[in-house]
């Protein structure tokens, strides 16, 4: 167990210590610890930066949009699958919806680009055939967020539904019988038996998603970005990458990243506390 502990120290805790870089003026020769302290300079720089507001708004907007769509859909899918008595149909739906999860981000983004291409994409070809104008989905800042969110739903809903299906299979059968005796309709049964049954799982998943809110998929976002949609697609993590690694402005990028991590941690703690008070379910 020494190697894994060393791993965590070196690759997880050392970077945390390195984050003091945010309060220093990084000098390659002097190294992290030898560089002079500059206090809150880089944070001031960040807060005064006119791009800062856009970054925050973009990050939060897309995160909450993503959460609002991708949280309920797997639940609905699982509830619907749970009603299906035809085993083969159920298995087919599950297997097909699960498959896109295994497609890599790079391939996923290129699929999105191929399908939505204004000139050759199948989406616009079909739209044209039906008499609609072509739309440049990835070039339109207002449509970008929806493309991001719904392509993600397409890829992950089947995978996310598995947890809920498991929770549903664990519901006490006597509750269903009681509901039947009471003359509950299918819909009432879902409302009064199924949904309470998956509540604990749902709360945990919700907390975890909120904990990831500031970490919206850098990978996909970065790949989907283009100069036309930058006004809504530039988020904190892509900004850190560009400023830090492409422009080698280490200290400033570290400050931005640290700000992001702290907000994230605070959000997680807040949501966890609320969940514990309201539903008695929490991460710890």
């Amino acid at each position: 167990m020494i190697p894994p502990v060393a791993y965590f120290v070196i690759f997880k805790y050392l970077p945390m210590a390195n984050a003091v870089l945010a309060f220093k003026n990084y000098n390659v020769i002097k190294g992290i610890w030898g560089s002079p302290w500059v206090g809150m300079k880089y944070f001031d720089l960040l807060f005064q930066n006119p791009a800062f507001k856009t970054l925050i708004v973009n990050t939060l907007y897309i995160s909450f949009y993503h959460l609002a769509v991708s949280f309920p859909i797997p639940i609905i899918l699982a509830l619907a699958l749970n009603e299906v008595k035809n085993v083969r149909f159920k298995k087919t739906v599950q297997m097909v919806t699960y498959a896109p999860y295994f497609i890599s981000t790079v391939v996923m983004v290129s699929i999105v680009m191929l399908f939505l291409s204004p000139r050759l994409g199948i989406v616009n070809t079909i739209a044209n055939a039906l008499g609609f104008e072509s739309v440049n989905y990835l070039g339109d800042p207002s449509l970008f967020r929806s493309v991001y969110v719904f392509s993600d739903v397409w890829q992950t809903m089947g995978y996310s539904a598995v947890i809920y299906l498991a929770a549903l299979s664990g519901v006490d059968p006597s509750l269903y019988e009681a509901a039947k005796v009471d003359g509950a309709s299918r819909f009432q049964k879902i409302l009064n038996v199924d949904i309470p049954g998956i509540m604990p799982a749902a709360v945990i998943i919700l907390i975890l998603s909120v904990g990831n809110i500031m970490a919206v998929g850098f990978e996909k976002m970065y790949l989907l970005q283009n100069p036309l949609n930058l006004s809504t697609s530039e988020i904190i993590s892509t900004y850190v990458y560009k400023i830090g690694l492409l422009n080698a402005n280490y200290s400033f990028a570290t400050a931005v990243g640290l700000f992001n991590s702290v907000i994230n941690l605070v959000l997680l703690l807040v949501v966890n506390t609320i969940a514990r008070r309201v539903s008695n379910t929490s991460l710890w």
Partner: protein
Amino acid sequence: MLIAKTQSGHAAGSVRRAIRESLGDRIFIAGTYIFLTVVLIAVLYPLVYILSSSISSPAAVSSGKVWLWPVDLTLDGYKAVFRNDQVISGYANSLFYTVFGTLISVALTIMIAYPLSRKSFFGRSPLMIFVTFTMLFSGGLIPTYLVVKSLGMIDTRWALLIPNAIWVWQVIIARTFFQSTIPDELSEAAEIDGCSDMRFLFSVIVPLAKPIIAVLALMYAVGQWNAYFDALIYLKSQSIYPLQLILRSILILNNGTGSIDAAEMVKRQQLAELMKYSLIVVASLPVLVIYPFVQRYFVQGMLIGSVKG
């Protein structure tokens, strides 16, 4: 006995339901089936379309004639893919990273998850906090980059194998598995027999842990095969690029084929477009082919992971 009982119970229940099913319920069920069919088509259609396009003629694809089934069957796209040296070397590199990365990751994960699962292990809860805290807070991109840099891993194959070797989530899954399947008494018995901890780990735990090793290996392997971000930030030489990074330059940045021959231009452009579809199929195939066989392991892994503990 018990099974037989529940089965007959279900049968009786469904007979009764068939009689009593109200109109509202039947409409509701029909709605459910329609909804699921729509979802099924929405997920399946893009996959079929990509496959069809990849074996259709370049001209048919770019003129929009393909919308479901392939038109003018050809394997030109695949030929172009396999003639591309970058793709071949990317494929070989990705295989290397997947095999060795998975070995390293699984070994490290088990080494930390096993002690964490033992109640007798001194300092268990501080260690658990030590591990899970990294899920909540991180130093960030730049500080991590600087650590990797100071270790001299930049632009070496190590950068893809080590810095991201352990996923905390996998540690939790493995720990839960050990906790629920391997009783503490087993290690006590081994201890009395004079078995060392190392020997115990290899001759008792590892054989018992085969299912969880399969789950971990699959998840790490898929992750490693699909990863591109570490390669993007840590690698500079194209000769060690994994497939995903090569894909990015061809599929997304359009840096694949370069030709200014005016007459050939249109044809080449069409072929480049077709090649993208073939490339998508080729790159996703290894994972998608094994997926039906390993699906249950994935589900199993997710379920173990979801148990709170």
